């Protein structure tokens, strides 16, 4: 088809967590500009399966519509590729040019070990969530929503924080592999709303402790996380996380 592109991919291949890993180069001819980045990988993988010489490339994906947070990939030096505010599944090949060489690496962080090829283990995020990223709800009827008046601005701010899909691009982008944007978003969405108040202090402490225990680095406010976040979570959530944590440590029990 006219308008199709020939792409050269340099892909990180790694058999398992303990394998050292290396780059492999693949030519992918006839890529449609309307394909998503992941669809290009599907095409390549089908070919690898048909050829039978190599196992297909492992990469994470699920919804493919930018809402689940499962896809990843560090593309030409940036998480989720060159465009702002989109996940890799929403990145289209029209963002590249015919003849481009694209380097694809997994998220790299001690807390995100590579499982295979481009797929990393992000269960450290799950452990941070189970440490405190929840509210305890007793059973029984839900109370009338109007009993809990919440100002529009607060609701919007909480919602903005809650749009974090837990993809880990913030960690991948950060030179310190810090998870503070993610944790800040999760702490913010609860700290701003009445339902989050009972466990507010405990939550901030538990989530930060778990974050540190997982081996994420310490934030130095470079702002790379927010710039690369597909949901454009602002740095103010990290400032709030600092306040919540320090408040809980200095004023809590």
């Amino acid at each position, binding site marked *: 088809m006219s308008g199709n592109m020939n792409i050269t991919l340099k892909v990180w291949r790694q058999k398992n967590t303990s394998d050292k*890993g290396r*780059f492999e180069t693949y030519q992918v001819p006839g890529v449609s500009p309307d394909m998503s980045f992941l669809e290009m990988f599907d095409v390549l993988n089908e070919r690898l399966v048909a050829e039978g010489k190599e196992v297909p490339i492992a990469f994470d994906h699920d919804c493919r519509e930018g809402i689940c947070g499962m896809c990843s990939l*560090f593309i*030409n*030096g*940036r998480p989720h590729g*060159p465009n702002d505010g989109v996940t890799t599944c929403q990145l289209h090949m029209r963002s590249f040019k015919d003849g481009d060489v694209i*380097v694809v*690496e997994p998220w*790299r*962080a*001690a*807390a995100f070990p590579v499982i295979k090829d481009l797929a990393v283990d992000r269960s450290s995020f799950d452990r941070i969530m189970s440490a405190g990223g929840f509210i305890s709800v007793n059973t029984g009827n839900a109370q009338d929503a109007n009993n809990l008046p919440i100002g529009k601005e607060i609701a919007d701010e909480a919602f903005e924080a809650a749009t974090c899909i837990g993809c880990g691009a913030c960690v991948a*982008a950060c*030179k*310190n*592999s*810090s998870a*503070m944007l993610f944790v800040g978003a999760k702490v913010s969405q609860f700290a701003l709303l009445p339902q989050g108040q009972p466990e507010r202090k405990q939550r901030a402490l538990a989530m*930060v*402790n778990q*974050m*540190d225990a997982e*081996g*994420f*680095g*310490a*934030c*130095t*406010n*470079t*702002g*790379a996380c927010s*710039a*690369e976040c597909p949901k454009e979570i602002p*740095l*103010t959530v*990290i*400032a*709030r*996380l*600092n*306040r919540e*944590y*320090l408040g809980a*440590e*200095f004023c809590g029990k």
Partner: protein
Amino acid sequence: MNWLIKTLNSSIGQKVIMSLTGLFLCSFLIIHMIGNLQLFHDDYGLAFNKYAAFMTTNPLIKVVSYLLYASILFHAIKGLHLVYKNNQARPVKYAVNNGKANSHWSSRNMGILGTMLLVFIAVHMSDFWYEYKFGDVPHTQYAVSLETGEIMTDTIPAGMKLHNKIEDVIANGKHIYVVKDLYKEVSVGFKEWPLVLLYVLSMFALSFHLYHGFSSAFQSLGINHSKYSGLIRFIGLWFFSIIIPLAFAAMPVYFFIS
């Protein structure tokens, strides 16, 4: 006390330490700059030498200065430790990393900039601070005419007992000061181009360090709000990363060319 140690050792606690010591150093820079502007007075260094004597003898300032040395050390050691630890959080590096697409260069190189400043501080303090306190900086006598305000320098009368204080007497219609002549050390020292170059380059490092550091310190303390963050960034850019380094860099350059 346990909780305090734990808090300060947490990732957020470390930011707070860097932030508070950093802001304290920023406040010192303001004082240091204003004081050093006396170098530009056309008075054979009288104002500057009086200021230097005051800064080294006033008991309150002495206490604050020990706090300052401790802060410099703490900020540097903690900072280097953080660079090391954060480096460990990513054992395998990216082959391609386009950092400039998402963050400012200075924010990614605070460790390097800080190390440059540490080296600078060591050279700077051994050249002037150490010399002034422990070396043999000669004394100079100034005579200021009470009538005309005219300033004259004089050699020290033989046999006069000298110590690190301002001798301040009025005699024969003249105000006589005897002080250690740090001004001379400065004006002679800055005739050497390698030293001037080091100072000017270091002020570039200072500029970039503070461009990120000043506003970052507030973010670390949880202070980030659309109402005042613009002002913090404005002060960080114009005052701390332009005016202060420029004023400091002007001093060696002034003595070099004058």
